[in-house]
């Protein structure tokens, strides 16, 4: 089966900055894939190359087998992109905007699908409202609707929930998850790592234009960060445990544990020092820990 997104040795330079430095990436059809990285890592550049908003300096990129440069018309029909910037055309209403976008993609009578998309994104009441009169969150919903108006099999969301309220986030993710269940491939970049952890089956981490980690979300969580234990103690922490401290509080601390077995050693050292444990909570590392370790190390 053709990969939904295939990137081979993608290079892009802006002056002296090597924004993408030989990126290789393959996203399978139907995947919910996360692309993470600090600001300036190259995430948006990669999306721009896939969408044809920028021209690669080297390498090959394709959407469902269609080269984004040589077969740009076919590849763009297969791709729906929600841009990061909150952009809109102030001359038109929501419905006009969506009809125009349909027309750009060669769809003449698309009102049934436009109505459905507006319904899922709670835009129906605003259909005839001018874009200028919408709140930031509503404009963001229209951006999502514009990306979906031609029913693309591959959907790219470039930080779609930046600056939007909880209600929109939840309704947006419900809709995107539904689309993913229906077979659409989703490629997501976000700074909300808990969203990526909850939604993405696989994750790639970028730093300075290179991929520094690429694995399933579970493998990344298992292999890189281990566990944490939060303790509330009757006395001070023994000196031998200080190197494991992540956070220090008045009556307790958060310690890093490489494995479950290490917990027994911590408890033994506390018993030896006659420090009683009042409360103990074991936590699995989250994606933020993985991200900090991988990006910090790379």
């Amino acid at each position, binding site marked *: 089966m053709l990969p939904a997104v295939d990137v081979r040795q993608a290079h892009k330079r802006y002056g002296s900055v090597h924004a993408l430095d030989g990126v290789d990436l393959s996203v399978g059809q139907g995947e919910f894939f996360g692309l993470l990285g600090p600001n300036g890592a190259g995430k948006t550049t990669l999306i721009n190359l896939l969408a044809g908003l920028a021209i690669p300096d080297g390498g090959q990129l394709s959407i469902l087998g269609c080269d984004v440069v040589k077969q740009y018309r076919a590849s763009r029909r297969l791709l729906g992109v929600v841009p990061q910037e909150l952009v*809109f055309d102030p*001359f038109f209403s929501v419905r006009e905007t969506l009809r125009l976008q349909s027309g750009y993609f060669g769809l003449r009578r698309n009102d049934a699908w436009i109505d459905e998309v507006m319904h899922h994104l709670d835009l129906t009441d605003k259909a005839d409202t001018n874009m200028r009169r919408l709140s930031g969150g509503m404009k963001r919903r229209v951006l999502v609707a514009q990306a979906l108006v031609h029913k693309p099999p591959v959907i790219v969301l470039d930080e779609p929930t930046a600056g939007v309220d909880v209600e929109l986030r939840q309704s947006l993710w419900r809709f995107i998850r539904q689309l993913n269940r229906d077979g659409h491939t989703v490629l997501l970049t976000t700074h909300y790592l808990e969203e990526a952890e909850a939604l993405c089956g696989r994750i790639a981490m970028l730093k300075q234009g290179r991929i520094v980690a690429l694995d399933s979300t579970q493998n990344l969580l298992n292999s890189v960060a281990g566990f944490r234990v939060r303790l509330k103690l009757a006395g001070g922490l023994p000196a031998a445990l200080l190197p494991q401290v992540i956070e220090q509080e008045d009556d307790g601390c958060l310690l890093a544990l490489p494995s479950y077995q290490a917990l027994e050693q911590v408890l033994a050292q506390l018993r030896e020092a006659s420090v009683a444990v009042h409360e103990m909570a074991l936590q699995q590392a989250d994606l933020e820990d993985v991200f900090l370790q991988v990006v910090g190390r790379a």
Partner: protein
Amino acid sequence: MLSFQTLFYKEALRVQKVAFQTLLAPVLTALLYLLIFSHVLEQHVEVYPGVRYTAFLIPGLVMMAVLQNAFANSSSSLIQSKITGNIVFVLLAPIAYWEFFLAYTLASVARGLVVGVGVYLAALWFAQPPMQFPLWVVLFALLGSALLGSLGVVAGIWSEKFDQLAGFQNFIIMPLTFLSGVFYSIHSLPAFWQSLSRYNPFFYMIDGFRYGFFGVSDISPWFSLAVVSGCLLVLAGFTLALLKSGYKLRL
């Protein structure tokens, strides 16, 4: 072709939504020129024998409005879209570079012609110039507006801020338009300025257009037709190459 049609329709809809600024205001401006110049010069100037100065002026003003509005349409639409960022919706779509070119240029032609017809109809209240060769009138209006629409695409792509576009408009388009014979025949100029005028493509557009009204021109309309057509072909080729390369659009 639906992508092209939609982009053309979007441009036309945009013009219609701000018709007061894009259609009515240019007509009013042209009428003010007509009112002032004809009032001041009517009794003193006779450019063509037996033709009132006001009648002489009307075709020039009509063509000037056509050209300026054709340029304004594509250039202002593109710079606005670039600065607000909504150009991304067009760039993300499967629209070929030549469809992009045709849509913006033809929308400019449409606006230029609508404004031109508006100026002509309103000016008839002041004087009624004959229209001896309507086909020449239509031909030069079409070619001239297409040329300026295409130039507007180039200016809109090249400019990164409104200031740069205003410079393009004020230091290139306006002087070339005003020095093209809108208000006079180049035969009334000193020899040096006459020679210089022949390097101004706007002169050929105005002169050919005016020939369609009076059957009289400063230069053969066929020569004007060749110059204007040649300029359009060269500029269209340049604009298409610019769009194909993604210059300043696909970074």
